[in-house]
């Protein structure tokens, strides 16, 4: 199973490192990352495998949200099913 992590906020050094560090701590395996900086706004989308995570998925959502708050970023973690349902027939 996959989850989609989206990170948005003002571009600063080390965002990717902190988010991927948290993924490693939880046991979420990153399989794809795309990121861009538009007019100083940092936006990143990360696909991670969540089969082996060491906490519940809802805990992961909370932990990432808290991490976002501490860095001044908005971080969302959503199950891939919602995107598949909406965009695949």
């Amino acid at each position, binding site marked *: 199973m996959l989850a989609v992590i989206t990170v948005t906020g003002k571009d600063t050094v080390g965002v990717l490192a902190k988010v991927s560090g948290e993924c490693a701590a939880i046991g979420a395996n990153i399989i794809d990352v795309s990121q861009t900086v538009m007019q100083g706004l940092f936006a990143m*989308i990360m*696909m991670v495998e969540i089969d082996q995570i060491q906490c519940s998925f809802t805990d992961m*959502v909370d932990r990432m949200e808290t991490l976002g708050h501490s860095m001044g970023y908005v971080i969302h973690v*959503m*199950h891939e099913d919602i*995107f598949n349902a909406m*965009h695949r027939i």
Partner: protein
Amino acid sequence: MLNTNDILETISMIQDENLDIRTVTMGISLLDCADADIEASCRKVYQKITTLAKDLVPVCEQIEKEFGIPIINKRISVTPIAMLAGVSGGDPVKYALTLEKAAGAVGVNFIGGFSALVHRGFSAGDQALIHAIPEALAQTEHICASVNVGSTKAGINLDAVELMGRIVREAAEITKDRECIGASKLVVLCNAPENNPFMAGAFHGVGEPDVVIHVGVSGPGVVRSALARSGKNKSITEIADLIKRTAFKITRMGQLVGTEASRRLGVPFGIVDLSLAPTPAIGDSVAHILEEIGLEQCGAAGTTAALAMLNDAVKKGGVMASSMVGGLSGAFIPVSEDAGMIDAARSGALCIEKLEAMTAVCSVGLDMIIIPGDTTPEVISGIIADEAAIGMINSKTTAVRVIPAIGKQAGEELNFGGLLGYGPIMKVNTLSPAVFVHRGGQIPAPIQALKN
């Protein structure tokens, strides 16, 4: 692999355009709770609801978190209580208080089903329940009442129509110190669906399984934004297509949430109701969609045609996205729950007669309309009869949820708070239909009923 644009589109629909699941509604049959002793009957009702629905709210909250989609309401619909009152006798208000206690215990926003189906006449329990509605709604906060007074197959029960004019007024009168809120939880229907997840008209029909999960989606903001992005040069055919595609995506979300809730609760999945349900929040208005299509303000000439196209396109898009579509499915036009409708009613662009025409092509009826406090019960009955006739002849659901603002006049406002919203008192035609509504009897089923 998912593509970045798709991911961003979903996220912006949820964050910026108010996309949400409006309701996950658990339908529960109470037929096996009926008992000749009303106290025993109430005990069984409480027991059954609190057992079956104990995980409803936590499971919905879990789904909200995992999928990142808000589920605004968690609700329950039950077997029309008139059926239980028919067996037990006694004061039906006891059932309302039992349901209120059960709603508190499981944490749901509303329980619908303080209802009676009287489209062909009254049976045991129906009259008692209808007379108890004002008191039941005054003594509870989370209970919704509905009465079905007509259908295409049965015609219209004019005795019930006359009675409901008085009941609607009474429901407002005994809650006049609370913005007449009683009447906002009471709807009079024609062709009421048995699997509707939306309030106030939700009840669990007798043909439904013992317990079932229905989902009501929403998303007027998403449709409006899609239209705004497409610009003013697209033809109406292209606009219809765009609405269809957007409705498809919204409904897929409802189907996913319904399937998940049903799996996690171990309860069969019923239907997705693909309704565009507005809220008073900015950017969540059906009226603003109509204005985006190209009307100066909702209520202008062309409103009915634009709404007809919208209603139809929503259904066409939604029907392919879900394996089971039901309920009301279309566009709602509740005045006090829609920022654009409120503005249009305030400015005088929208009048009750125009709304009546709009109900011939939308998914429900005259909904959340605040009328002057001195409106007579006969006029309210007349309004109900007109709406029921539109439903009966067009084989569609119609409804009347009007709130007489006791002690107030056209131009003043009521504010119910929350999703029920606020709005101005709208003028009604005060000419009397008294002789007509007091004739009683049954308006015969129309020729459309003879389909066999």
